């Protein structure tokens, strides 16, 4: 088993060399790890490496290939890179700029006010939508100047986390 995994700007090549029960030999970018690794509960691993005991929690991300991985001290956003995702990446790279300037909500909430409509020219720092969650209203601002391409929500809507609400090109 061989796979590339991405964490921050690093793409690491992982290979499972041996597995006997919970005793594993894995190579990470050529460095060999001999580990005792066991799943103790759904999404929770106990790992012993060189005598050190690590608890690792894994939360599935937006797709089956994304994980949020917590070790005791840090959290990592990890993505599995396989042939399919490489293909998708190449296809997408053209419009990544658009994605960056679009407005999506990091948490579920309720749309309180929408301040723009498709076709509007917007400036960097301009507030385009206000979303409320948990007694707090958050103003979402545009990062770079652009033009509103589409508004996918309306006032009063309940929105889930990580949804694109307003597309800006």
């Amino acid at each position, binding site marked *: 088993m061989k796979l590339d995994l991405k964490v921050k700007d690093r793409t690491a090549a992982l290979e*499972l060399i041996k597995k006997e029960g919970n005793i594993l030999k894995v190579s990470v970018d050529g460095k060999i790890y001999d580990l005792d690794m066991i799943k103790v509960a759904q999404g929770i691993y106990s790992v012993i490496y060189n005598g050190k005991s690590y608890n690792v*929690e894994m939360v599935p991300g937006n797709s089956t290939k994304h*994980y949020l991985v917590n*070790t005791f001290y*840090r959290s*990592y956003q990890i993505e599995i890179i396989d042939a399919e995702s490489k293909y998708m990446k190449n296809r997408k790279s053209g419009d990544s700029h658009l994605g960056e300037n679009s407005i999506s909500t*990091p948490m579920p*909430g309720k749309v309180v006010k929408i301040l723009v409509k498709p076709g509007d020219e917007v400036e960097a720092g301009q507030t385009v939508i206000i979303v409320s969650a948990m007694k707090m209203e*958050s103003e979402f601002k545009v990062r770079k100047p652009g033009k509103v391409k589409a508004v996918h929500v309306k006032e009063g809507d309940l929105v889930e986390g990580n949804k694109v609400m307003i597309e800006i090109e």
Partner: protein
Amino acid sequence: MQKMIKKVLVANRGEIAVRIMRSCREMGIQSVAVFSEADRTSMHVRYADEAYYIGPSPSAESYLKMDKIIEVAKLSGADAIHPGYGFLSENAKFSARCGEAGIIFIGPSPFAISTMGDKITARKTMIAAGVPVVPGTTEKVTSDEFALKTIKEVGLPVMIKASAGGGGKGMRLIREEKDILPALRGAKSEAMTAFGDDAVYIEKYIDSPHHIEFQILADKHGNAVHLFERECSVQRRHQKVVEETPSPIMTPKVRAEMGAYAVAAAKAVNYDGAGTIEFIVDDNLNYYFLEMNTRLQVEHPITERVVGVDIVKEQINIANGKVLSFVQENLKQSGHAIECRIYAEDTDNNFMPNPGTIKHIQEPLGLGVRHDGYVYEGYTIPIYYDPMISKLIVWGQTRGEAIARMRRALYEYKITGVKTSIKFLERIMESPDFCIGNYNTHFIENNLERLLADSECDLNCEDIALISAFIEYSDKLDKVKQTVSMATLRHGADWKARGRRSGVNRL
């Protein structure tokens, strides 16, 4: 003699509702939960002896509906209502409505609530009782001339505040003379919009203050005591994040003085029940009455731990007309307690609330740790209410031991599924200013960069995270492949069978 309370409706939700029901249970009192649409699966509903639906998710349509709540109290035969904190807890009208309906409101009289609720009236009452208040006016500002004259007397900088205020609305800080009149007009118009009342007053602005509050208990027979102070200066946007008792800056002399003023403040409004007198304190331990919270506070558990009193039980005893079972001389502070509020929030993303479903939770346990929460595995934190998940309270013989224990408890506390403030709190517990006890309300903004920094971890950490994701994904793939190959197998068998069958058919 008054009939004793046998059943309490808790007009609240989440951790505080559960915390109140715990004390009820220990007293042999039945508890009644009320819940909104979003809260059917909340722990307070599961914990209560009885539970009733009161309306849609927004609190204005459920937890703030006085009629509905009083109706449920009558229906269920509750003799008393405990409002918790927030919602209807400081609503004089609700206190009065309960009384009219023959239901005991576990809290102070409408008079005490409304006197303390209006800031100008509260200031006047405190001055009359001899309690030091922040220098400024005791009248509402009626004209520009009055404002200019008062500010000249008090000296810049000053704050203009709404009398009906709260939550930072209708509030303006003035540092320069030229800003006085625009700020006054801005504050008044904001106060009118927010509270329907444009009364504002002027207070001297205390720079870099400490927030120190005193817990008081008063019975219906004129007895009142204080349960010492809580230091609440670790705040973010006027929201307390960490509290401790004793305050690291307090001296026995100032404590005794402030405690006596706190009791005097309560007596000045014939207070009964549990309440909190908030003071602002400068670096030279000059202190000024700020406001009174006429309810149970979020941070009451640290006082419970250090003084050894169950404040909710005392509230119920007082509501039952009992005489306080202790006098001031019986009360002592023993050791040190710290509370951390755990929020569902993304500390790296401007502290944005982060509601969601709890996938896994491991709660800290063991010596000196108290945990007051309400979430459980599989529970979805709704978007309609406060993002607080739980309160972690630790005790130690010394402040140093309490900090070390809090670090240990935060280290043990694991929640997946929502982002939380746990790591941010760990960094507060490690920051030198907090550890030496040298901080004021600017602590978080002064230390923000340090508090948001990534924790250190060696390269192995990252590699082990990668390996874990790799193995989790590979195992999943293996399972999928097995399923697929089994399906193919069956498919193959199927195909043969059909082949045979169709062969048969063709015969």
